[in-house]
């Protein structure tokens, strides 16, 4: 009986192919990791401490924000509040995977969430919209992104920034462009477009007028509210239709 409760079958081969699928984007993650490593030693972290932080926190934007607050002393509550605010998007990202994760045993479920980050989540969420269940990308893709983040940090702390000016090459836009490509590659319907409009305006309003770092959660919840009140009338959920749909990569 316990077996029947968790029907999601992990395919080890797919975990490996998802690892290689996110390898290209991981090269860019190495560049950001190097930028973080350099910034970390500049505020006084040792190479080892920087590497530990990248390994166990594994959330770039919040790590950069932490460096901004670093000194001979660090105020704990403000630091943790900022880290929580920036990373609170994970709450929603994880929740959005729950329809798949409930089919995985709790041990595996929380183990794979250790590797949850923007890029691998965006792939899983987009495929789910198209009716494909892909938790393997969280594991395989998460692993390659995690390794890239650590390798990048190591390069940064030992060799300095790899590139004089990553911004000149547009590298600061990699994640934004990747997430946009994922959004546009997903299912689009009038309902989704209205949700995006609401999410866009809500996030902008929050970004302008609310305390910083709240705009992602505010915008996402506003967009979700559209879905809550406007149900897809076609009835059947996309969830159980396996296969087909365009495959992008």
């Amino acid at each position, binding site marked *: 009986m316990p077996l029947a409760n968790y029907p999601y079958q992990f395919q080890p081969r797919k975990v490996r192919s998802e690892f290689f699928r996110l390898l290209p984007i991981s090269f860019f993650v190495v560049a950001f990791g190097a930028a973080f490593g350099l910034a970390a030693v500049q505020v006084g972290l040792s190479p080892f401490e920087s590497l530990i932080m990248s390994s166990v926190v*594994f959330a770039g934007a919040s790590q950069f924000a932490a460096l901004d607050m670093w000194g001979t002393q660090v105020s704990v509550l403000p630091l943790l509040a900022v880290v929580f605010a920036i990373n609170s998007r*994970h709450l929603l990202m994880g929740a959005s995977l729950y329809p798949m994760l409930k089919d995985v045993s709790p041990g595996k479920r929380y183990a794979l969430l250790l590797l949850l980050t923007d890029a691998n989540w965006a792939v899983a969420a987009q495929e789910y919209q198209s009716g494909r269940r892909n938790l393997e990308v969280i594991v395989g893709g998460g692993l390659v992104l995690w390794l890239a983040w650590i390798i990048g940090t190591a390069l940064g702390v030992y060799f300095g920034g790899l590139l004089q000016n990553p911004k000149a090459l547009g590298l600061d836009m990699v994640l934004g462009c990747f997430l946009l490509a994922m959004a546009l590659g997903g299912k689009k319907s009038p309902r989704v477009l209205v949700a995006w409009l609401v999410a866009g305006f809500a996030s902008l309003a929050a970004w302008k007028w609310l305390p910083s770092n709240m705009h992602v959660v505010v915008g996402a919840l506003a967009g979700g509210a559209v*879905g809550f009140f406007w149900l897809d009338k076609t009835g059947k959920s996309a969830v159980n239709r396996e296969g087909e749909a365009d495959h992008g990569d």
Partner: protein
Amino acid sequence: MAIETTPAGIFGLIALMALVTLVTRFGGVFLMSFVPISPRIESFINTMASSVLIAIIVPMAVGGDLGALAALLATAVTMLALRKPLPAISAGLVAAASVRYLG
């Protein structure tokens, strides 16, 4: 409360940051395990998921420089035309780099 950035203090701070981040990674799934998945909740989850992406990108476009805007526009156009992420992202980077080089 403040922690001195001695080696022990730094490891304490890193551990706390890791713990808070872990709470965000686990928390959403944990809370959802108490919510029955009705069609309405599923609809909420699905529109919320892609709205996360929009809520990250829109302030990035509005708050960024011309290069950022060019990158996102080029990615959008290429993605809608070709439906392949890698060419779309590459177009975005080329657009950002070109605009910044010229600007």
